[in-house]
């Protein structure tokens, strides 16, 4: 019997539990050089807004110990162009498409979600609630349970297929925010977005990124992400996609055991474009070697 490496997230069935993290894998075209995007459990695309966005001033990337800071911002082609120019490639490649959505106001998010609901080729939305809420003075939706809740409810009204809320780790109590999102209709959670960090250019005596702060990702944040996945799974039982610093199969397995039903890989693609197929193969081999029927049997086994 072949090992069952399929995964289920908020009602969405995936052929395997591995997908790219939003913003790190473009729209699937760039890495098609290395393998077919349809091999992945899903493809999560760059944060998509109603209108096209320019994003932040360069430099946008800084390296830190075992991690990177980015301040790409939300440079993207906008939802219309995504549908007309990017989605066809993903559909042609039979990808399960998850669209990461973002905006400055609740209405922005709802509008994008409504537009995507019309597209059969979009299997789920991942609501990036870490964006600054421009109407509320730039404080992110995701740092406050009440505003997260309002946001998720509005998107839920517009979008009938699986809704995944992607949470920010920059909060005192991730369990509270997670609970609010689930209670407001999120079918699953993605944990975590980047951790706010900074780097100083000592030669020029200023922050290395013109935006000052940036988002920390990569192996450095793995223990932080694992802790949050574990805590949220333990407290809420919600379906979780784990993300943060995964760079090999063993890392992915840690997330599954901590309570994630699937994983995303971001920064590691940058230094190992083959990392996702490797992890997928790793799951198959591990299940067979250890005579485990399904990845699902491992979800949360480390929780005490």
């Amino acid at each position: 019997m072949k090992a069952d490496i399929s995964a289920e997230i908020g009602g969405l069935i995936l052929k395997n539990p591995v997908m790219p993290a939003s913003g790190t894998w473009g729209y699937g075209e760039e890495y098609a050089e290395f393998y077919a995007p349809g091999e992945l459990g899903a493809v999560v695309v760059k944060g998509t807004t109603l209108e096209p966005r320019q994003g932040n001033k360069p430099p946008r990337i800084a390296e830190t110990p075992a991690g990177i800071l980015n301040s790409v911002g939300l440079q993207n082609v906008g939802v219309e162009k995504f549908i007309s120019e990017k989605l066809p490639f993903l559909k042609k490649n039979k990808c399960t498409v998850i669209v990461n959505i973002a905006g400055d106001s609740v209405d922005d998010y709802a509008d994008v979600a409504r537009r995507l609901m019309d597209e059969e080729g979009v299997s789920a939305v991942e609501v990036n609630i870490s964006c600054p809420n421009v109407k509320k003075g730039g404080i992110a939706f995701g740092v406050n349970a009440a505003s997260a809740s309002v946001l998720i409810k509005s998107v839920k009204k517009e979008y009938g297929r699986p809704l995944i809320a992607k949470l920010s780790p920059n909060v005192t109590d991730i369990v509270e925010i997670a609970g609010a999102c689930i209670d407001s209709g999120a079918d699953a959670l993605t944990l975590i977005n980047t951790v706010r960090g900074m780097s100083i250019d000592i030669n020029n005596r200023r922050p290395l990124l013109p935006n000052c702060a940036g988002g920390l990702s990569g192996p450095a944040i793995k223990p932080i992400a694992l802790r949050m996945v574990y805590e949220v799974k333990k407290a809420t039982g919600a379906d979780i996609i784990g993300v943060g610093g995964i760079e090999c199969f063993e890392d992915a397995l840690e997330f599954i055991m901590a309570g994630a039903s699937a994983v995303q890989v971001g920064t590691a693609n940058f230094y190992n474009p083959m990392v996702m197929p490797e992890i997928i193969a790793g799951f198959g081999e591990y299940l067979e070697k250890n005579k485990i029927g399904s990845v699902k049997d491992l979800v949360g086994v480390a929780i005490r």
Partner: protein
Amino acid sequence: MNFHDGLSGEKIFFGLSEVINIKEIVRETFLIEISSSSQLAKSEPGQFVYIIPKMQKRTVLPRPLCIADADSETVKLIFKIRGKGTLCLSELGKGDKISVMGPLGTGFPLPREPVLLAGGGLGAAPLYFLAKKLRNNKKTSLLLGFKNSDEAYFIDEFKSIAKNVFVCTDDGSLGAGGNVVEKAGEIIKNEKVICACGPRPMLKGLSDFAGKKGLRIFVSLEERMGCGVGACLGCVVKIRRGGKEEYQRVCKEGPVFDGLEVVY
């Protein structure tokens, strides 16, 4: 961590390359020759490789280096020690294996008109490759600028593949005194195109000059990178085209851009 050993795409090689030779050609500047592949053999001047420094010294990202020459046997790169990654590279020895991705990006056009290749410092590296490819264009001239004679490299190699090679140094310790922008104004005759690589102020100066003179100019830019393949939007520069400004990717649309369109 299990990197695929020889695996790679159709156009982009990703795998281990062997160090065939490495030497310090001028202080803290190294010429490294690594083994090639079918994909790397098709590299174009101006393209780059993304080199992964083995997770030493807490690094994460690969390092972009211009291809200074490539054939089916070897790929040549020239780099200067700037930080942790290039330090690790400088410590490599013959026979060591390194992880390489490439060729990446969009290189220089191969102009048929008379062309001036202008390089500043490390910027000379990709021009060597370009000059070789332009050997058939007898109207190619080369202008190489360095801080001083101690930093100059590859002069003889350039002279062996091109006829008109001008050298200048900031302090006049080798060739003429002065910088590349000044010298370009002096030596340019009937050239219609400039291909340039070097520090940004130099590229800006040359672009201004080309704009005024009505010449075409192609410049190779640097920016901090994430993925190296166009997926993360980490490496953008601002490009003005048709009155509209937008960010383009150094690793995909670049590193070579139309110098007149770059918003410096």
